[in-house]
Structure formats: structure tokens, C-alpha cells
């Protein structure tokens, strides 16, 4: 069974630029999450989707972050404009009826 796929794995941008991350969850998983993991910290939930609807985006900085999950499968997370403090690993995770599975993450460095 294929795992959660994320791309790109690494991205370096200047502050105020924009960036987008893509996630393909495990086939059949209705629930999809985006987490932000700052170096040395635990993952922090940004947004949770159930199929293509948003369940929880209370911790998403909506002035600069946006996410969508069209057709209830793939998802994209966008940051515009990026700030220095957005440097982190962005983890996508998906869940069917049990365990949460994480992708390997997309590491963002904002200079």
C-alpha cells in the first residue's frame, strides 16, 4: 500500500514570496491533515479536511495560509507571502477509520 506522498521535499524561498505544497493521501482515506513542525517542536495542526470539507482550521493563519482539497483526494497548502517564522516542515497526514499516517514532509526554508 502506497503511503502519503508529499512534494516538494525541500523548498527555499525569500521572505514575501509564495510557495505551495502538495499532498496525495493514502487511497480511500477521507480525512486529511496539514501539520506544521518547527525544528525542535512537536507537530501543530494547521487544518483538517473530511473529504473536501474543512473540519478544523482554527490554527491556520488565514491572512497568509490557505489550503484546499478539491474532489476530496489531493490537497494543496499555500503560503503567501511567506515570513521567516514559516520556516518549518509541513507534514501531511491521512486517516481512514483508524491510525493516522504521516508523509515525509516538505521542508521550507524562508530566507
Amino acid at each position, binding site marked *: 500500500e502506497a503511503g502519503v506522498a508529499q512534494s516538494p521535499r525541500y523548498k527555499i524561498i525569500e521572505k514575501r514570496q509564495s510557495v505551495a505544497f502538495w499532498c496525495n493521501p493514502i487511497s480511500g482515506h477521507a480525512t486529511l491533515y496539514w501539520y506544521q513542525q518547527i525544528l525542535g517542536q*512537536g507537530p501543530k495542526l494547521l487544518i483538517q479536511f473530511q473529504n473536501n470539507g474543512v473540519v478544523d482550521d482554527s490554527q491556520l493563519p488565514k491572512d497568509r495560509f490557505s489550503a484546499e482539497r478539491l474532489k476530496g483526494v489531493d490537497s494543496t497548502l499555500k503560503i503567501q507571502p511567506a515570513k521567516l517564522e514559516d520556516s518549518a516542515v509541513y507534514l501531511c497526514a491521512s486517516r481512514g477509520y*483508524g491510525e493516522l499516517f*504521516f508523509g*515525509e514532509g516538505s521542508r521550507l526554508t524562508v530566507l
Partner: protein
Amino acid sequence: QQQVKQSPQSLIVQKGGISIINCAYENTAFDYFPWYQQFPGKGPALLIAIRPDVSEKKEGRFTISFNKSAKQFSLHIMDSQPGDSATYFCAASRRTGGETSGSRLTFGEGTQLTVNP
């Protein structure tokens, strides 16, 4: 507000020793307590999990001890091996609406475990 506090931040043990990582939570509505293992460059992977209706759960060399009254739970790794060297995260979540466990996970800050050969 940090709802799950984890300690220690780093831990070094010898091969064959016991590794112990502790977590404390604040929200009494939490009803699912997993531990995740993360290797460098990889996403976290579920290691073991417990619900508050039991005080202990064991899977191989890994044991969770849970103290509901103290709002604390811990991970014990018996006979620690160099391959166990990784970052360990405790987490907690509560059921919301019709969702099952695993949603809205709140993570601790992580413990970097090093097992020396």
C-alpha cells in the same frame, strides 16, 4: 496554551537499558493517548497508543503507563537498542462529533532519544 508537556527534552541510554519518557496533559476531555516515533527526514509513525480505561498497555519492548488521576502517561522502552534512537512524541486527542480517535492530535514537544551501543 501548551496542553501536553513532555520530558525530558533529550535522553541518552546505554544499549540494553530502559528508556522512560513522561507526558502530562491538562485537558480532561482527552481520551486517546498515542506515542509517535520520528526518524530524521521522516514523518512521525504511530508506535503505541492507550485509552484512559486501562492503566497499562504493552507491545513488545514498548509499554505505556497511564495515570488518569494525575493526568500523566509515560513510555517505557525496555532493552533499548541503537535502532530505537529517534525523536519520540506523546500526543493526546478527544473525540469530536462523530469522529473517532486520532483526530485533532495535540503533540508534546518531543524527546530525542540516543541509545549508545
